[in-house]
């Protein structure tokens, strides 16, 4: 998982080869250029949802409502 270099420093995480193959298939034709970008996105979403401080401050409903509005304004895909 070191195919991407960008703004943040990256490190290696071991995940099953079979899962990587599944992700490779899943991201075909999507906006995710690499397995790393997809995994980073998914993990960021999971972590942000489970962080106690954030959960307390912004509910899932708030988050969805805000994202919907940002999409309608052209700030989010």
């Amino acid at each position, binding site marked *: 998982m070191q195919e*991407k270099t*960008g*703004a*943040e*420093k990256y490190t290696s995480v071991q995940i099953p080869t079979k899962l990587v193959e599944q992700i490779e298939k899943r991201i075909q034709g999507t906006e*995710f250029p690499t397995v790393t*970008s997809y995994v*980073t*996105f998914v993990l*960021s*979403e999971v972590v*942000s949802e489970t962080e106690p401080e*954030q959960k307390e*401050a*912004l*509910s899932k*409903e*708030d988050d969805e*409502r*805000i*994202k919907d*509005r*940002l999409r*309608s*304004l*052209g*700030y*989010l*895909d």
Partner: protein
Amino acid sequence: MMLQGDCNYIVSGLERSGTSMMMQMLHSGGVPIAYTESRKADVNNPKGYFELEGGKIITSLMKGMFPIEKYQGKFIKITAYGLSYLPSTGKYKIIYMERNLEEVLDSMEKMSNVVDENREQTKQSFQRLNEKVKKEILSKENINVLFIHYNEMLKDPIPQVQRICEFLGTCEVDTAPMVSVVDKQLYRQRRV
């Protein structure tokens, strides 16, 4: 003028809170900013959006794909929601715009051309987002924040421009053009 080359400078705040105006002010004052014409000026922002990635910078940040280091030493615009996705390493200076929330929501409705039937809920959600983001950025030692109130800027820009110069730690900023950017004719969703 030059900004610190090891620091990311960001104009932020809720959407429709004056972030584009602030970018334009900085640009007029000779402060380095980075933007593309990927999102053209329109009736909602007649002087331009001053954005990167066609306004979809939040999407790139969420995916960890935005090359923020490339923009050190220049101001870029990242609206409030995107600040939670900034890389945790690095040094940041943020000018965070605030505006009467009813005006923000009025402007959002006008821009998206919809009437929000759940406006009170939307208001509470954005209020919580605003508080959460401000709390986050204020709690981090690597982030330095200046809060500028849009409505105060419109009322009397000179003291606000002076605050910006102090925040940037320079007297090289050309303040007169910055002040002249503040266009009261564009203050269309007035509530206060």
